[in-house]
């Protein structure tokens, strides 16, 4: 039996705080990325796209891992709040995966000479994007709240397998894409300290934006669920 809980007021109160924090964090991170960090010796200022590209990719990973965890939690507890968290995170993840592909393509043009390359990281990211579009499609084609949540939770668990594949694809196969520079197996980033600081700042800023979007989207989904449960009596 599906369990419903009231929308927590703490998340409603957190929204304006997260919104303000997002603006401040993005402003600081943009200043660091565009002005404070040095240009790359080989790529010049083109390298600055790294800060948004990598932060986007990080958010996509984070979002899909949250879908996975919320899916397990839903199957375990049958609480609709976890279904709301899963759908919110999946939508944000799809958005940021799409942006990662677009930004990667824009970066590839001046560095690789092409808009698209059939190399492992790019292809596995595109496959991950298609998988989670399918996840959202499955949700939209199901009318029953409980059935939709259960099926989506099962799918949310299955699809997470692709996240480590995307990350490790560049080490498993010959790739044109750069190898991991921050999350390396030996935990020793190979970036200039100012570049690394700017990248970390941008990643933190994007994570706060993710938290803000999550709170807003979960709130909308909880209202929607409440309407469905109310209509069902």
């Amino acid at each position, binding site marked *: 039996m599906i369990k419903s809980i009231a929308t927590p007021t703490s998340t409603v109160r957190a929204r304006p705080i997260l919104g303000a924090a997002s603006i401040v964090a993005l402003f600081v991170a943009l200043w660091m990325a565009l002005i404070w960090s040095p240009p790359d010796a080989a790529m010049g200022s083109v390298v600055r796209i790294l800060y948004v590209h990598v932060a986007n990719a990080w958010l996509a990973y984070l979002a899909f891992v949250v879908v996975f965890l919320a899916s397990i939690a839903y199957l375990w507890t049958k609480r609709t709040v976890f279904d709301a968290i899963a759908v919110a995170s999946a939508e944000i993840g799809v958005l940021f995966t799409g942006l990662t592909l677009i930004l990667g393509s824009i970066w590839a043009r001046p560095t690789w000479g092409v808009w698209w390359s059939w190399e492992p990281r790019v292809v596995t990211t595109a496959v991950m994007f298609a998988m989670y579009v399918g996840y959202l499609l*499955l949700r939209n084609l199901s009318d029953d709240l409980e059935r939709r949540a259960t099926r989506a939770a099962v799918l949310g668990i299955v699809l997470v397998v692709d996240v480590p594949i995307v990350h490790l694809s560049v080490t498993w196969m010959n790739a044109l894409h750069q190898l991991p520079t921050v999350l390396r197996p030996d935990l020793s980033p190979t970036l200039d300290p100012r570049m690394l600081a700017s990248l970390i700042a941008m990643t933190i800023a994007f994570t706060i934006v993710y938290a803000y979007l999550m709170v807003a989207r979960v709130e909308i989904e909880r209202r929607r669920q409440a309407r469905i449960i109310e209509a069902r009596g």
Partner: protein
Amino acid sequence: MTLTRIWRIAARETLAERGQPDGLVAAVTFVATLILVESLAVGPLAAGQPPVASALFWIAMAFAAILATTRSFDRELEDDAIDAVLALPGGRDALYGGKVLALMALLAFVALIGGLLSLVLLSLAIALPFHLVFVIVAGVLGLPPVVVLFVTLSLRLRARGALVPILALPVLVPHLVAATNGTAAAITGDASGALGWGGLLVAFALVYSVLGLTIVPTALE
């Protein structure tokens, strides 16, 4: 015992297919047509190249698996037999496991026909026939665990026919890559390549079988 129930479901499925072989006929016809049409589209010379011939064969097999699995569940839904199976204790695990086993047998037959057709139509010379059989068996084992999973998730949904390929094909990408490379390796005489890719296919089949048996019963209502 769940294993006994899995065998029973698989046997029932095979008997149903023997009595009314529309799923098998549809899958074989589909594979044959697709191999023919794809070979014509890329041209017989290009289609005869081992990597191309292998890719055409496995793409056809993936779609045949989707077709046969969908047909198998349609038969259950038509007479509401699925509700009776699900009502049995352990029926959910048995349904998944039984369907996977029965579809493996069905797809092995489809692969045999499709493979022979490819050999004849594309004049393929096989350097390592036993390696080829290993890769094809491993590839056939890997398809049903994934496809049954997604057909189960899409049961009684609108636009199921479109949804299943959209969900299954991205997940099948590693399988298709491994099966295509393994088959091409066996055709060209690369023994270590064929065994390596075949091993990956076995691992893929195991991972998705365990995953399916663990979580698919939850999705069945």
